[in-house]
């Protein structure tokens, strides 16, 4: 850990002012502190935002939900409105990390957690995400956990969040306050950027930009589920995960939104797949076609081709579950 200055922000605008030029915000610190101890990141300044008044969950005028950036994962998962109207989010939260971590981790921090790529975590290894231009040692290395979508020849890491996958399926937006006080709302679909040749750039946030809230649109109705497949029953990152929201009308799929975790540098979504399902009757053939369409883009590494069949099977199981007339 390198020496750093510490400031505690009393207001978001104070935080954004302090948060520029080599500074890092700290809230729950569940990922940041590990990264600092290992000197994977070495901020000059920590701006403590954990006491900002951003821990409320409230209804929006449109009938959606505004989730303050400081809302703890465990509180969000237990929120009555979330459990009733956005169960996919509650399930995703509870599938992540451990109870201790969820008690500390915040909504904003969860979105910004860093990859779990082995090579990112070892400062002796080249890594374009950690040390731009040094190379990607994961390629050709141990790649069982890595991406099958959206990777580049410069980086094949996955995004580890479960929560973000559910938010992606729910069409969430991220509210961001910039240093000069401007507040903007970004759809989550535009929040993350693919690695390309700049894997160290993971989001569109500029220095000093502070996530203040996550906004959920009004509930879509229909059924929701989050299915996470992993190597042990708890406290493991997703090998693949599927967040699904499906509404049926008169035996046809009126709406389907699907997001995928553990397979890409960001929560993955494929609108082509969803439009294939739209206004169609659920059937094994349809679901197989949807899976084919999703996986047509998959580019596995040496050790993770299994993710293709695993994602296929998991997606079909989720679609079956969400469209099963008996349930």
């Amino acid at each position: 850990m390198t020496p750093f200055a510490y400031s505690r922000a009393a207001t978001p605008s104070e935080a954004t002012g302090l948060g520029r030029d080599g500074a890092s915000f700290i809230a729950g610190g569940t990922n940041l502190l590990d990264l600092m101890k290992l000197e994977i990141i070495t901020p000059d300044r920590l701006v403590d935002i954990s006491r900002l008044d951003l821990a409320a969950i409230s209804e929006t005028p449109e009938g959606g939900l505004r989730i303050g950036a400081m809302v703890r994962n465990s509180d969000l998962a237990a929120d009555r409105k979330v459990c009733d109207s956005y169960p996919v989010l509650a399930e995703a939260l509870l599938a992540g990390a451990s109870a201790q971590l969820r008690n500390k981790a915040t909504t904003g921090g969860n979105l910004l957690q860093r990859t779990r790529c082995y090579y990112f975590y070892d400062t002796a290894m080249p890594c374009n995400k950690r040390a731009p231009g040094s190379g990607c040692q994961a390629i050709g290395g141990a790649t069982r956990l890595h991406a099958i979508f959206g990777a580049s020849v410069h980086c094949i890491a996955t995004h580890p969040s479960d929560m973000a996958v559910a938010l992606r399926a729910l069409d969430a937006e991220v509210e961001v306050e910039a240093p000069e006080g401007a507040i903007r709302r970004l759809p989550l679909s535009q929040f993350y950027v693919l690695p390309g040749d700049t894997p160290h750039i993971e989001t569109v946030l500029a220095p000093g930009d502070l996530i203040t809230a996550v906004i959920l649109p009004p509930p879509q109705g229909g059924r929701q589920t989050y299915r996470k497949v992993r190597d042990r029953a708890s406290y493991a990152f997703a090998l693949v995960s599927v967040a699904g929201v499906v509404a049926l009308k008169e035996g046809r799929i009126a709406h389907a939104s699907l997001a995928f975790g553990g397979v890409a540098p960001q929560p993955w979504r494929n609108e082509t797949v969803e439009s294939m399902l739209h206004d169609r009757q659920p059937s094994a053939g349809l679901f197989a076609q949807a899976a084919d369409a999703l996986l047509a883009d998959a580019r596995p590494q040496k050790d993770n081709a299994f993710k293709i069949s695993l994602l296929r099977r998991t997606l079909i199981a989720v679609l079956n579950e969400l469209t099963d007339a008996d349930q």
Partner: protein
Amino acid sequence: MTSHIKMDERVERDRLAEMVQAVIGKPLDRPEGALKVSGAAPYAMDRLPANACHGVLVRATVSNGTLRDMDVDAVQALPGIRAIIADDRLLRNPAQGMAGEAPIQGPKDIAYFGQPIALVVAETFEQARHGAQALKLRFEADGTAIVAPDDPKADIETPEDEQDSTGDLDAAMQTARHTVDAHYTTPGHVSAAMEPHASIAEWNGDRLTLYGSYQMLRFNRAELADALGIEEKQVRILAPYVGGGFGSKLGIGPEAVAAALAAKALGVPVAVAMSRQQVFESVMRRSETDQHIRLAADEQGRLIGIGHEALVSNLPGEEFSEPVTQATPFLYQGDHRVIGHRIARVHRTCAGSVRAPGEAVGLTALEIALDELAAASGIDPVKLRLINIPQKDPSQDIPFSSHMLAEALEEGAKRFDWDRRRSEPGAVRDGEWLIGMGMASAARVNMLIESKARVTLNANGTGTVETDMTDIGTGTYTVLSQIAGEMLGLPMDSVETLLGDTAYPPASGSGGSFGAASNGTAVLLACEEIRQQLCERLDCDMQGLTLKDGHAIVGNRRIALPEILDGSRLVGEGHVEPGKAEETVRQATYGSYFAEVAVNAITGETRLRRMLGVFAAGRILNPKTARSQCLGGMTFGIGMALTEELIHDPRDGHIVNRDFAEYHLPVNADVPQIDVVLLDERDAWANPLQAKGIGELGICGAAASIVNAIYNATGIRIRDLPATLDKIIDGLQSRTD
């Protein structure tokens, strides 16, 4: 006065059974339990002196080569840095268990990625850690290093004395009615002790005191002295509390030697604690194994031949190699036998003793093969094992000391409702889940190691046990107090056991499941010595002396111990050595495992539903601590079956999953209800306690019961552990799509 015994023959007389205090064999709590759960038990780093400096080890970042240069000046200029120690006496890797001498030393020659090569010492831990991270190193790397045992260019040793062949197995395989011929592979494992390795070194003149986290102090003292080039008597090691060892703390480690060198150089105490990543890289791993197993059986399933040939790995120059086939020679019958053992020399983290070296992985593979034989022959897996239990050790034609495998199999089958198992795979389904049951035998060799202990009967009538034995979470404090309490007629709260200090008589140490039996015998003998002295004071013979509740009862007299002692104290020492009994009889512990799993028909995820272990290990000194040992072993068995795997980079061999987020031990949600049944047994050949080791028995074969249950659930045979879903999903595809 010392009471001594060499175990040359069986000890018929069961002294503990003649005692009346009735604390032995009782499920008593740990006397130090409250200290541990309240944080009051001082582990190594809790002993930090106020003026201590902190050292952090620096690692090699090549797999093989030479350290040419390091930029010492730049780091020395950083705040708080006191020294950079790159002494030639630094250890390449920890000493192997019971080595009693230093392992290979010298930080310049790099043999594996992660090898400690220097120690950065600073006023605070954070400064030292930053200094270690900032230290720029220049290596001359040997790009041709072999880092994987299956590299065709790997140097493979075939030690002559570890090959054995009887009869003609090839011919038996040709003529046998039922055969199995397959390779089984297990990956590397780590011990995963909760407390990372840590040492605090403090010199007083030329005398060194080390607070450490070690399992075998008398050996560690010799190893540390040898590494530093000083006399053993100059070294004192204290390790009264050890947060788990599982083999990783058998031999002195790099952090202890580095702390001692730094403390000497700086003239202040120096503490060196390893990070979890450092423990993964620079302590000990269990070798990965490739096991070729051949079984030949007749029409009725009776084994006529067994072949078990293993390939393991270690660093160049290391004596230890995973004794994979240790239980194979005596577990089942069969006239035609082949035992093979080969060692690939690879530039990976040192391989050493991890959680029951040998049987943990070797018996697991053998018991999967037995299940394959059961499936091939249509014979029930329990019955197949029962009909193949030999009457004598078939490899040496010597009798067993005691042997309750049959009882363990039968008791387990009954308690687990084994007869409800459907023998055809894939027959039971619960929604998305395929349900199966599997079982396996347990076996582990039993050992006795030379051990001494001192017991004092104090003037106030309390007892004190002193030995440099360790309690690594196993319950040593408890069982030694029970033995002394039983022998001296003292309630538990009148006995204090002091451990983990080389100032006390040298013990076996904790390892190889031999601690309680070896050191417990020394305590029993020391108590016999005190009983003798009491008899002299009371003018009675040993037969006539009863000790209970702090009183001596002789004839119709009942006298409080302080009254007899009259202000003095009695001291007895006990000393046990192994003897001819080791060769006269085959000593081992046995048991059985039964497991029920659910395999997800869509994803291939396996979840254990219930598990039972039935074990026989001679007299059970304390059913509570013994049960905990078995629960821990079976939990590690779950890990071996389903989740645990050291992953090495294919290019430089370094361990990539170096923390508990990515090295998957079973978590609570992976561990369902586990039942442990301990059978009543005595083994008079083992020692006067008639107890055998139980610490490791619970892992020896446990994983096989789970893997065999996966087969029963799905028809998919896993021969490459762990049984992660990627190895199952393809097989499910062909069955369900």
